Structures are given as C-alpha cells and as structure tokens.
C-alpha cells in the first residue's frame, strides 16, 4: 500500500497510515495519553504535541508507563538507543 508506512513501536514492526499522528497511534492501541511518556527516535515528546506530530517511515516509537518497582525488571526494559546499539 502506497499510503502506509512501516514504523517500530516498542521494538516491534508495525504498519500504519502515512498521516498517523502519535495521538492516533495511542488511540489505536487503546493507551491513555496522560499516563504514558512517548519517545520518538530518542526524543521525548511533549504530550501537547501528540496530535500534531506525524509519524514517518522508519520512525522508532517507545511508549512507556509506570509499573510496579522496586526491583529491576530488566526483561521489560526499553531497547538501547540507536546511537549506542550493540
């Protein structure tokens, strides 16, 4: 499909419409925007920009929220940034 793009969300490949915003993506995933932090290509997004910022082919999105802690839960940790992948 010409008007669809491939992005990576929390380490998983995903396709979406070419004009999808971060806000659209969160709604599609049934995630409440006020409870998460979103990092787009290692840049932390301001919540008020979620509905304006459109995603591009190859974008890497990380969506994070608070979980029980305490103790380290390394299995669920976010991927390391592309600047220091390896």
């Amino acid at each position, binding site marked *: 499909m010409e008007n669809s793009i491939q992005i990576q969300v929390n380490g998983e490949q995903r396709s979406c419409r070419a004009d999808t915003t971060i806000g659209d993506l969160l709604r599609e995933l*049934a995630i409440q925007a006020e409870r998460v*932090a979103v*990092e787009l290509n290692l840049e932390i997004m301001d919540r008020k920009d979620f509905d304006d910022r459109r995603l591009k082919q190859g974008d890497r999105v990380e969506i*994070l*929220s608070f979980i029980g802690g305490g103790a*380290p839960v390394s299995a669920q940790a976010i991927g390391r940034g592309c600047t220091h992948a390896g």
Partner: protein
Amino acid sequence: MQDDRLIIAGHEFTSRLFVGTGKYKDFAETKKAIEASGADVVTVAVRRVNITDRSKENLLDYIDPKKYTILPNTAGCYNVEDAVRYSRLARAAGVSDLIKLEVLGDERTLFPDTAGLIEAAKILVKEGFIVLPYTNDDPIVAQKLVDIGCPAVMPLAAPIGSGLGIRNPYNLKIIMEMIKVPIIVDAGVGTASDAALAMELGADAVLMNTAIAGAQDPIAMAEAMKYAVQAGRLAYKAGRIPRKLYATASSPIEGML
C-alpha cells in the same frame, strides 16, 4: 505524630515509611499492602507499555496519584546515560520532578555505582529534577550528593532485596550526624525490627519493597512496618538510655528489711 511531618523539597509527608510496588502477586494485593503500610510515598518503575496485550491493567488504576506521591525510580539502569534517559521519561509520564535515582554498578550486588550516581545527579539537578539518590552507606559520597543539590539522600542498609537488615549502623549514624538533609534508609530491610533500628539511629524515613512484598503475608507485614517505623521514630525522639556494662537497680534499696 501529626506535628512530625517529613519535608523534602517542599513536599510534605505524614508517614516516614516509603514503599515500593514491585514483586506483588497482583495489583489488588499491591493496593492493600500500601494501604496497610500507611505510606504517602510509593515508588514505581518506568517500563515499556505492553502493546500486544492491552488487557493488562495499569498500576495507576490501583494507586491513585492524587492520594499518593508517586516516586519513579531508575531501577535497572547501569550507566549514567540510561539513568538520565529514564528520569526524563519518568517526568514525561508523570506529573512531578521527583526521581529516585539509581545507577547500579553490578547485577549480583545491585550496589550503587557512586561515581555514575554523582555524574547523573549533577545532570538531573541542573534540569530541575528533585533527585533522591540511592547510594552506598558512604558519608563522603552522601555529602557530595548534597553539595550537588540533592534534597535528601538514600543510603542502603544492605543489598536490595537481601533482607540482611542494617549491616553498618555506624556508617549510617555518621551519615545522619554529618548530613543536614533528610536521610532515607533504602534497601536491605528484612523485618520490622530492622526498620525500627533504622529510625532509632535517626533516619528520617525508611524505604522498602521486598521486605513487605516478599513476606508470607504482605499485608500484615506492611502493617508491622508501619508500627515499626512509628515506634523507631518515637524512640529516637524520646532519647534512649546509654548502654552500660553492669546493672543499675531500678527499685530503691531504702525500705528493704
């Protein structure tokens, strides 16, 4: 104990017990244990949202951020870069500048990497974070963290989750005498007497997770910890008697036959 509030960077707390939210069976148990503990401050970790299984409940459905002070941590971070990244994400996900800063040095001991901790604290304080650093029981490092601008320091009692209790009461005592900001003893507490001892030494608060979550009855242990922290605080303020090698009779000799 109404007039004995703990104040950290303008945040006021009635309870001197801070609790973690990890390792519980489910969120319902987490909620009950936190209620039983009477804690005002609740620590959380920042992790990826599960996007494949959206049926998973959210911790904040159980822990009301209006009722509790949510203290995000950087648990699981082993370098300055990650700790700073997670701190920024925590601020973006939450509502405050509070961060419990952990920069761990080693997976086996989970001891803090104090050099990394100081470096990360410097960066975060400059960015306006209220940094509560998890540190070793080292008075010199604690003072450096205060000099950077940390409004409290959190020295460990023993390795995280070890339940070994207060391993070095003398170092903790030196920290409490030297350092002029609140001291929160964090990690290593195993049972109620450990928490009471920390408070009797003069700690301003105690933070724990595993000692409650890992107990056979976490809710009962949460309540025990509430009383232990209160008892320890009262004993500290009351001023204990000095230790003496020999007996001192507490009944008068006069009037004996």
